[in-house]
């Protein structure tokens, strides 16, 4: 198979699983699957699907009794900070991909805002090599749009694309200059690959540390207005239309942005967008206590913004759910709110949090959430995982009824700055199969015990 998935994503050596998943509830809306069944994983693919109890286990296959569990296509996260190279104390490729696998992810894309920045083929090459030794699941690396993410000079995008950059982004920082943005979009015709954008106007964000609104007025913390994001998205959708480029807007946070995206998509602009679990579930009310676990960029916004994001996920204006998993050292988060770094971890809690707060109360359908959590590779041209027969085996097994407390037994991630820490959630990933290999298996899974 020489799909783009195989050529752009790397992982460590692995044993191909032979596994019969019996009596799971198979749910893959794109494949038309929604009901109990057996699923046989073999030779890296979904070898067979059958009625519950109908498939015989081949001699070499392990049988997993999945009665009461759901089987989804494994999730794909297009927005992960692996902090490598440079801040391996916060995360490395092994811990980050282990964390992803524990959250049900079968593939991720890593951001290039590392030290050094991934802005040359040599840095990219060394990371891909390292992923082939350490990554638990297929991992792609995006490269920077500009040298050093300084927003001035384009990277050698064509060479980076040839070296396997999965996309381009200066994530963490906006492309301040409209001229550079336009050049990147023009150059995209040569380099290909999606340009993913962290959208914010630094002149409007200023020294802001949280959403500008009633809560920031009370706390006296400088605010980041919603229009800091939406005006840049308006600019960049215009530029993308003018240069006929294609862009992906990261971590959308504001109602105004959803509205700008909706208009642009309706006008035929090639723009996709993502929302994070924390922006879908939390608001600036959480910041009242100035707990740095609620500090991220873009910031948690108002309830009205949150509702607009949920509507955007439902309608598809926001086509995927991405975590923006951003590990930070404990000592850096133990600083006053205004000094602490922005970002929260989220790979291990993403599905459970969305399930608990949006699916269980009936706000979003389970099938729709599965679609959005598996679609993260689409803007980058990567295939969407599927449970269909003969598809590469990307499966996660989830116990929707299992309740757990986030962080109760630590994290697979090296960092613990999770926005959902301490929350009791329903929905526990029991097993993740990524591209044909078992990437995660809950220790108690075999005996069916719940932690």
């Amino acid at each position: 198979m020489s799909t783009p998935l195989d050529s752009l994503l790397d992982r460590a050596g692995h044993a191909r699983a032979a596994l019969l998943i019996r009596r799971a509830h198979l749910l893959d809306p794109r494949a038309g699957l929604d009901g109990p069944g057996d699923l046989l994983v073999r030779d890296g693919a979904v070898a067979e699907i059958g009625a519950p109890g109908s498939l015989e286990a081949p001699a070499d296959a392990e049988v997993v009794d999945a009665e009461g569990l759901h089987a989804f296509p494994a999730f794909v996260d297009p927005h992960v900070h692996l902090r490598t190279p440079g801040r391996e104390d916060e995360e490395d490729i092994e811990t980050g991909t282990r964390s992803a696998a524990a959250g049900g992810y079968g593939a991720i894309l890593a951001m290039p805002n590392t030290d050094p920045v991934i802005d040359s083929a040599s840095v990219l090459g060394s990371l891909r090599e390292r992923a082939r030794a350490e990554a638990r699941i297929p991992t792609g690396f995006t490269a920077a749009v500009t040298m050093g993410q300084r927003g001035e000079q384009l990277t050698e995008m064509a060479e980076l694309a040839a070296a396997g950059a999965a996309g381009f982004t200066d994530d963490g920082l906006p492309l301040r200059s409209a001229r550079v943005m336009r050049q990147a979009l023009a150059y995209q015709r040569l380099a290909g690959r999606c340009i993913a954008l962290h959208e914010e106007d630094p002149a409007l964000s200023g020294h802001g540390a949280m959403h500008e609104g009633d809560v920031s007025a009370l706390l006296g913390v400088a605010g980041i207005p919603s229009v800091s994001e939406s005006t840049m998205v308006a600019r960049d959708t215009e530029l993308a239309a003018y240069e006929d480029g294609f862009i992906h807007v990261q971590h959308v946070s504001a109602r105004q942005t959803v509205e700008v995206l909706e208009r642009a998509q309706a006008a035929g602009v090639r723009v996709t967008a993502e929302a994070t679990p924390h922006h879908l579930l939390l608001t600036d009310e959480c910041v009242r206590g100035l707990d740095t676990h609620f500090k991220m960029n873009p910031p948690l916004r108002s309830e009205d913004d949150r509702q607009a994001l949920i509507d955007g996920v439902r309608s598809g204006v926001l086509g995927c759910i991405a975590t923006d998993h951003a590990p930070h050292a404990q000592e850096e988060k133990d600083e006053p709110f205004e000094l602490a770094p922005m970002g929260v971890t989220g790979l291990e809690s993403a599905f459970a949090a969305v399930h608990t707060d949006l699916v269980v109360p009936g706000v979003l359908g389970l099938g729709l959430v599965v679609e959005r959590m598996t679609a993260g590779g689409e803007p980058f041209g990567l295939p969407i995982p599927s449970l269909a027969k003969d598809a590469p085996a990307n499966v996660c097994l989830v116990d929707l009824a299992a309740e757990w407390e986030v962080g109760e037994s630590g994290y697979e991630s090296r960092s613990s700055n999770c926005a959902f820490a301490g929350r009791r959630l329903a929905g526990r990933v029991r097993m993740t199969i990524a591209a044909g290999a078992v990437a995660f298996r809950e220790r108690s899974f075999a005996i069916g015990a719940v932690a």
Partner: protein
Amino acid sequence: MKRHLLSVDDLSREDIERILGRAESFAEVSGREIKKVPALRGRTVINLFYEASTRTSSSFELAAKRLSADLVSIKAQDSSAEKGESLKDTVQTLSAYDPAAVVFRSPYAGAAGLVARWTPAAVINAGDGKHEHPTQALLDLYTLRRRAGRLEGLDVWIVGDVLHSRVARSNILAFGRMGCRVTVCGPPTLIPRGVESLGCEVRTTLDDLGRADVVYALRMQHERMAGSFVPSLREYAAQYQIDGRRLGAGQLLMHPGPVNRGVELSAEVIDSPQALITDQVESGVVVRMAVLYELLAGGPGPPRDAAAKSRPTSQPQPA
């Protein structure tokens, strides 16, 4: 009353009444030749100031000394913070001396709340960034009540740079809690979006200043000019300066100091009998004595939380 004083929000109206009453009784002590009472003998108070301060730090020092507490004053510029020690480590180090109270000022919002997580001592917020300055609000209430005889029903206008003012935030809450009607007024660029949610009216002109019983002018900080919040100090003064023309007969004038003469206030009003500015400074000591007394010696109070000392602070806080 709560164990710490981090925000005016921590205080009920009854708490405030009690503190003001206590301050009255300490005012009587301050009139004596020997201004000391033994209330906090043997207890330790640590003043930890990470930001420049004259009035607040000196009045807390005097307050602790007049209550006979042992006092340690630390300023950031000659502390281990200069050597790169984290706030958490500094606080835990100082806590090893078993202080009864830590008075803390920081340029960052919520920093006093963090300190409260890391020390078993009672923490008094002496100003955290642009967030709050609760003891300033208390001394303002005390000063105003002494002069006006009451607080309930007074119409208070807070005028100036509300955006960058922790005094404004604490005072909007405090005046509101005591039954005053609060209006904030200033250039639209210096009024934070959403400030109405604190319980005040917002005006951008002084047209209706005449209805105010009390005009509380805020300090206009020159350094804010860098952000182009107002076109010029000249225009600011033309629009918002409280002068003899604007300050009506019978209106009281307050200011947290230090004053920029000729910017937010004209010389004639500063020196007028309607101004309470020096009374405010004077009240600082007795009100801070009352706060220390309330937290450390007043009433039964909550028992010293033994668990607080060993509470694992490295755990993430529950959502």
